[in-house]
């Protein structure tokens, strides 16, 4: 009996530990001189680091334009590396979640890092906003309460994958297509949406194949695809894998003339450097920057002046908008008591999700209750010899729906 009591007490204690912080730490108090701490978790190492560095620069420019402070408190941007994978995402999120001063997380870069990371953050009442996670499930109503502290300013791949399929079927009049993904959440869901839409339109998918991130020898898998004689291969992967596929497709019997298409994950000069002349003629779907107004041109000028180079990945503007979205929500819910700032975490998350009609660089930003905030304008680009020579991705869309 005594033992049972002990066990009961222990169990209660444990539950208290788990339940405690979520209910107790709901109001974040920022004292005089203390910063508003925003924690970025981007990919900053490894082959996909251009994606993370690019978005971080977007944030830095936004912070600079805010004068470095919100409501009299300086903005502190810390940075964690999520390594573009689930392990890195988990580590980065745990580190951020263990810091009680963090108001909000900004990230992740890759959807596969967001999958384990977002629930860890939200358990501690920290919402997260991403500028580049495009996998549909993150804002899927079926994902449940683990993801109710999640938002994104980039498009949802339900849109991007469908546009790729419509482009292939309607514009290029292809009837047979294949897809390759690398098993990452991002690539897999894009490939799936593409295949589903393509089939719905009346086309045939000869096969959906997968490789592993880091693979270099794509010839066997391409040979397998060639046995189905598709007219186009859709390969929405990241830079190294897409580049390998593009280069090696030209060397596989039966695929010399097959059209190739990738997505925004490889829409970067890094990709051009990696794929070289084999990339000429291939298609990419990516946010349409030509549809944006003068404020984006001004942003680009600032970017070039500050970093000495043009943006290297497509999501810098989305990051910039995310920063202003955060600012708007803080201004809405923060209570000023003398020199201190009090922010109720639940109200803050609600305010984030209730953002409406915000004018951003990427369009008019309106969030829905699941966290999709983007005003998606996606176009298809074709790489030309001239792009290769200039070593930049083309800015003039080849095709767009609107």
């Amino acid at each position: 009996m005594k033992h049972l009591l002990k066990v009961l007490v222990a169990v209660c204690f444990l539950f208290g530990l788990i339940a405690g912080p979520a209910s107790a730490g709901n109001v974040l108090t920022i004292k005089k001189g203390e910063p508003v701490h925003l924690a970025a978790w981007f990919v900053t190492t490894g082959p996909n680091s251009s994606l993370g560095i690019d978005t971080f620069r977007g944030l830095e420019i936004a912070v600079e334009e805010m004068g470095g402070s919100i409501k009299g408190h300086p903005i502190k941007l810390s940075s964690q590396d999520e390594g573009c994978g689930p392990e890195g995402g988990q580590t980065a999120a745990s580190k951020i979640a263990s810091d009680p001063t963090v108001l909000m997380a900004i990230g992740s870069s890759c959807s596969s890092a967001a999958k384990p990371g977002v629930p860890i953050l939200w358990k501690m009442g920290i919402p997260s906003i991403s500028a580049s996670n495009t996998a549909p499930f993150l804002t899927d109503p079926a994902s449940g309460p683990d993801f109710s502290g999640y938002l994104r300013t980039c498009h949802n791949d339900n849109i991007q994958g469908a546009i790729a399929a419509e482009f292939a079927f309607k514009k290029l009049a292809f009837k047979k297509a294949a897809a390759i993904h690398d098993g990452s959440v991002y690539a897999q869901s894009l490939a799936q949406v593409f295949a589903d839409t393509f089939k719905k339109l009346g086309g045939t998918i000869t096969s959906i194949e997968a490789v592993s991130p880091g693979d270099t020898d794509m010839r066997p898998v391409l040979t397998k695809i060639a046995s189905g004689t598709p007219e186009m291969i859709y390969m929405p992967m990241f830079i190294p894998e897409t580049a390998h596929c593009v280069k090696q497709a030209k060397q596989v019997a039966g695929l010399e003339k097959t059209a190739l298409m990738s997505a925004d994950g490889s829409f970067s000069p890094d990709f051009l450097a990696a794929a070289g002349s084999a990339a000429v003629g291939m298609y990419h779907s990516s946010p349409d920057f030509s549809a944006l107004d003068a404020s984006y041109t001004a942003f680009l000028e600032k970017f070039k002046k500050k970093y000495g180079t043009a943006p290297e990945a497509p999501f810098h503007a989305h990051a910039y908008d995310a920063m202003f979205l955060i600012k708007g929500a803080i201004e809405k819910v923060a209570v000023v008591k003398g020199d201190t700032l009090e922010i109720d975490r639940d109200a803050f998350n609600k305010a984030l999700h209730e953002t409406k009609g915000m004018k951003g660089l990427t369009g008019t930003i309106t969030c829905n209750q699941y966290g999709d905030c983007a005003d998606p304008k996606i176009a298809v680009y074709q790489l030309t010899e001239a792009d290769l020579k200039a070593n930049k991705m083309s800015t003039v869309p080849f095709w767009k729906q609107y």
Partner: protein
Amino acid sequence: MFQKWKDRVTVTDIVMWMIGGTLLLMCLWGSVSTIRAGLYTKSHWIDFVIFGLAQGSIYSLIATGYTMVYGVLKMINFAHGEVFMSGPFTGYFVATAMWRSDFLDNHPIIAIIAIFAVAMLISTMIAYLVEKIAYRPLRGAPRLIPLITAIGASFFLQYLFRGLYGSGINAYPDVKVLEGFWMILGIRVLKIQAIVIVAAILMMIVLYGFIMSTKVGKAIRAVSEDKEAAALMGIDVDAMISTTFVIGGMAAGAAGVLYALMYKQVHFFMGFIPGLKAFTAAVLGGIGNIPGAMLGGVFLGLIESVAPALFLDGLGIIAPYQLKDAIAFTMLVMILIFRPTGILGERLATKKA
């Protein structure tokens, strides 16, 4: 007889044999149904084999480095993947410079020799320095310590090269003479793959000849057999260990350029996966055994290329190439269970015992 057998076999053995048997049956079943389904023509299979041979010969060259170092030091040099990366990454700058000035297309043979020379020099230097700086001071330490140091050296080199050359992916220029394909006995072989296979075989012959029939090679073999006895016989053990690293570095540098010419991509992380695979190949062949490492590399390359289509397609598994690494590492585990000495490891095991 039966009694003796019964005493020796444990429950673990039986379970292991059952797992092994099931895997084997699945492979057989998969192969039969793939072939019966007739998805692939004969030329597809030949393509798979050639792709596998080209990839495998590169694994072999790297694996020799692992295996030789294991021979003399009884440690796994996990920085070897970075030795492999350093050469072609540096060679990239030579290659692009020559490509820009059209030298690469006008004098392709001299240019390629120059790339090889630079890459092998850098790889050799890195291998030598790693041994001298990171491993030599730990000569007498317990075996775990150099192992951890090797992992540290590996990270250090990765991020050193990232700092030096940037984190972007760089593309090797296309060499015109290596483009296209040859018809060999009616089989379509990509020129670059044929060259990679032939070059790797030549290098391995030279390497094997060096180890087996020169004085230095003999000394290295003596050191790997018994360091103390070799020292007593007047062999400079430290110099022989350095020589081993130099030879391994040269092989890795050459493998790196072949790899870069075939896949046309270099970046600071490129050595990690091939390094792991080559280590697997070295264990497959029997670690410490040079012909074993060569055989293990080719075997691993072939399995990676052929097995997903052959074994898994017939079982109705979607997207089998994603499981390429799973097959490779499952095989490693199976080899470690049923033949811990590796394919050619037996002679070595008896010698050491």
